[in-house]
């Protein structure tokens, strides 16, 4: 059933007519030709489709486009404001944190979310003291918080330091 929506993506508004069944991921890739979010599993299991919705990381494959409303969608593309790579983009390159690169835009969006969540003091399943005022992004914390992003090339050993470098620069790592 066709419905008219306007998606706000990476700073631009796009009026669209979509079938109600269209996911945000398919709307971005197939309709807006923004192929930075990737389709890995289409079932919330791999994280390749991760985007930021009003700044919070979500799996765009499980979000129906009609439910987005006027929330701001940020893709890995959009993190490179003005064509300038985001610090996470740079650190993934510097740390050699990928091989094929298919999972990378999702990893980058997820990592951006992880750093914001840590800044807000959110704990994780490996946080020893749930009541601590601040969150620290140790390697164990990064591994746990990034567990929703799979990498078939298994670049994990380099993804952790890539995220840690930016966490350090953002003041959420000790």
């Amino acid at each position, binding site marked *: *059933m066709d419905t008219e929506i306007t998606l706000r993506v990476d700073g631009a508004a796009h009026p669209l007519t979509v079938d*109600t*069944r269209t996911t945000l991921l398919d709307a971005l890739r197939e309709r807006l030709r923004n192929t930075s979010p990737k389709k890995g599993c289409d079932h*919330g299991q791999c994280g390749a489709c991760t985007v930021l919705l009003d700044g919070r990381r979500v799996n765009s494959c499980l979000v129906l486009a009609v439910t987005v409303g006027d929330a701001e969608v940020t893709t890995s593309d959009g993190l490179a404001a003005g064509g300038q790579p985001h610090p996470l983009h740079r650190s993934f390159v510097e740390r050699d944190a990928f091989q094929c690169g298919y999972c990378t835009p999702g990893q980058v969006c997820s990592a951006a*979310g992880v750093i914001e969540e840590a800044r807000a003091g959110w704990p994780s399943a490996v946080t020893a003291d749930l009541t601590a005022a601040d969150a620290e992004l140790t390697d164990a914390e990064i591994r746990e918080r*990034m567990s*929703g992003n799979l990498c078939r090339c298994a670049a994990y050993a380099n993804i952790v330091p890539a995220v840690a470098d930016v966490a350090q620069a953002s003041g959420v790592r000790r």
Partner: protein
Amino acid sequence: MREFRYAAATDPAAAVALLAGEPSGAFLGGGTNLVDLMKLGVATPDVLVDVRTLTSREVTDAADGGLRIGAGVPNADLAADRRVRERYPVLAQALLAAASGQLRNRATTAGNLLQRTRCGYFTDVTRPCNKRSPGSGCGALRGLHRNHAVLGQTLDGPGTCVATQPSDMAVAMVALDAVVQVLGPDGARSIPIGELHRLPGDDASRDTTLRHGELVTAVDLPPMDMPSRYRKVRDRASFAFALVSVAAALRVEDGVVADVRLALGGVAHKPWRAAVAEGALRGRPATEESFAAAADAELAAATPLPGNGYKVPLARNVVVRTLLELTGGLA
């Protein structure tokens, strides 16, 4: 995916009224379970009534010293709430041990409670499954059931089902004696959470005692003054459903169990309140021997399947270890 109409209501009462006239419609929360099941052809609603932003996204202090959790509160926000972390650590730990950061940002409290089983026959429309297609049989009974139930299953007849309820959050809420607030076509009612999920009985298609069109509006947590914790055992360290989990709270006075709450996840069609074990523990010395005897008393009722017998000793050991941790007897 079947075609559907998308309807946004202005308030909870309007959402209830909308769905009341749509026998094949469904409420939509974060969609992380429902949209998945729609893609698989397991759920085929013809109307979705979006309630994610309609129901409250706030956690508020209740007059009795407890908390009221709006149905729309995302799992991530609930886990991060200071009051939950300080007063209900069992709930924060259960939430943080579930799914992924992305899913927890989108998933709502009501949707989490009402998520459907992960049984692989249920999610595959080419297989027999009494829950999805009543009368077709239970593929898991003689098939792959390593992660299925060991307690309270229906092992023969039309209701045959050996599935587990997958929510970690619900197990913690059962141990906390939460109360679910519901708004239906006939008005509002309160359901003690232990009476929300049901055993398969003679009808595996119904996960809960909710009637069609009833909207979960909030979950109330009574005050809690006992130390509590959640322990989950899974196939990998993160981002996996429970094989077995335990939500426990314990108060020890003069070396004796003064009060205890115990619920098990991953073992039944509903979060399993271990009432037998609780009864066996009250007034007993808070020792490893008492804990093991209580766990054994609870699990005496277990009827494991050929492929999941490991869950019985696993549940026993996790109960003992979690209670020992709560006594401070284990680091």
